[in-house]
């Protein structure tokens, strides 16, 4: 438990100068990375035609994500976070611009991207193992390989023993772990998560965050994690993309220079939270 024991391990990042945040960090530098990016969004725009008119959900968003990086996207409701998620996952076509994954343009969804939704979206008619196996059934892996990989993934997310349970028999936190295992099973280049922990209670959420970080460092995956919880972004991210509304646009990019595991009691942590809150201009509900 990260609990409330103060000062331990957070000291290491102190030399970053916590009071000296760059006041405006939205520069080409912050949005791009050195070396070949794993993910690249170039001038992404998305408009929806609806009976009530055209909605500009996203407008000219460009950024890069380095290999193995953990990037969080944060922003108020309606700022286009989910839209961005869907564009990157290839679930929708951008109105303008393009997404590149490992240099290739993304046109379709596919197993090179592991997606995790807020509402889990497990296949309710499949057991835990069946869900995790789902993506593997569409590869040419052998049966034994599949079984092996499924078991490894289930162990990884700590659900050993629940292989034959159906989703209805699981708690919210357990369901989300299955969703993560399922996404990881096909060994994607990028793990894409849209507010995955939005629906679980606070304690479970903290635990899942810890586990996700463990999995991330263990597998070395690149992760793009959407959230509207500022503390979550600061807990998890190497960098945070801040989206703004009307139309959805990239407003800010903030690098979180804290060593992991991060401690919420740490004053620097609190300062990052204040900074992000300030940048979002968010004030709670709605």
């Amino acid at each position, binding site marked *: 438990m990260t609990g409330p024991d103060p000062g331990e391990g957070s000291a290491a990042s102190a030399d970053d100068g916590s009071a000296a945040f760059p006041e405006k960090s939205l520069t080409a530098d912050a949005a791009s990375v050195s070396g070949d990016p794993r993910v690249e969004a170039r001038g992404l725009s998305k408009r*929806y*035609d*609806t*009976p*009530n*008119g*055209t*909605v*500009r959900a996203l407008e000219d968003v460009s950024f890069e994500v380095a290999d193995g990086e953990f990037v969080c996207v944060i922003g108020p409701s*309606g700022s286009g976070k989910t839209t961005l998620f869907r564009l990157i996952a290839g679930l929708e076509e951008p109105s303008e611009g393009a997404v590149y994954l490992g240099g290739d343009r993304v046109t379709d969804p596919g197993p090179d991207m592991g997606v995790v939704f807020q509402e889990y979206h497990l296949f309710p008619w499949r057991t835990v193992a069946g869900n995790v196996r789902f993506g593997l059934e569409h590869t040419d892996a052998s049966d034994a390989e599949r079984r092996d990989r499924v078991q490894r993934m289930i162990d990884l997310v700590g659900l050993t023993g629940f292989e034959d349970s159906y989703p209805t028999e699981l708690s919210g936190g357990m369901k989300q772990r299955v969703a993560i295992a399922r996404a990881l099973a096909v060994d994607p280049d990028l793990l894409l998560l849209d507010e995955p922990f939005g629906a679980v209670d606070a304690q479970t959420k903290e635990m899942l965050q810890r586990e996700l970080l463990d999995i991330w460092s263990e597998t070395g995956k690149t992760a793009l994690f959407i959230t509207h919880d500022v503390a979550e972004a600061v807990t998890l991210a190497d960098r945070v993309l801040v989206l703004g509304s*009307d*139309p959805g646009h990239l407003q800010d990019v903030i690098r979180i220079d804290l060593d992991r595991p991060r401690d919420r009691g740490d004053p620097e942590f609190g300062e990052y939270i204040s900074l992000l809150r300030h940048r979002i201009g968010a004030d709670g509900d709605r």
Partner: protein
Amino acid sequence: MGTDTTSTAAETEATGDRVTPKGAAETPESTDRMAVLERLTSRRARYGTGGIAAFVIGWFLVSLTQPSYVLPTPAAVATTFIEEASSGGLLVAIGQSVLHWIPGTIVGTALGVACGVVAGWNPTIDEVTSPVVRLLRPVPPLALIGFAIAWFGINHAGAAFIIAIGAFWINFYAAYGGVEGVSEDLVDVGRSLGVDGDRELLQHVVIPAASPEILTGIRTGIGRCWMLVVAAEIFGVPGIGRRILRASNNLQVDVVIAYILVLSLLFLIVDTAFRATQRRLLVWRGETR
């Protein structure tokens, strides 16, 4: 959307629970609003018309290979239809059918909803009636014509009885399912807010909560009752069904099809009207399915 989900078990689902509003379009630019709307509806209309056209052409082609006493051409049916309409016979028949369709539907619906609500609400009544209900449910309305005549006579009341039976079961099951599905916690909330006794709870909590299912049942029942008009008019009572039966006895397939078309169209009109009502009553569901 699209194919209108009506009249069977199935559609309850479609108009049913899985309403996941998307909160779409919060920042519309109303400049092109009308344009988009028009584009969407005109597409629907175009495709739908295309479908109807294809159907009529298909019918025409098949009718060429069939003698007219099996399948007359669309043109022949249209001619008959126009003749019947202009002679006034069609309107008269509609008027006659409505005379038992309306009371039959109303009585059957009211009784069905009432019994369904009671059986769904009271477990004892439910347990007592359940086997009888399962036994009576499959009795085809046609088999009840004898009773209709004996108890109500050859008049609109007898025909209404047949129709009411059809409406009864559909509404019984719809209300039953709806009431059974009402969250007990909602009832608890009502009780804790001072609603007391079965009658009050039903009135203030259970029936409103079950109203989506009840309304779907009513709508389905209205549709089925139109189809029962033919069965209800097998004895004595005049109307559309009688015209169909008589034409069929005289081997006038064109007249049969013309009057079936009348049934279809009336069904469409009534159903569309009811759907609008239903939608207005259920605005609170936050979705316009």
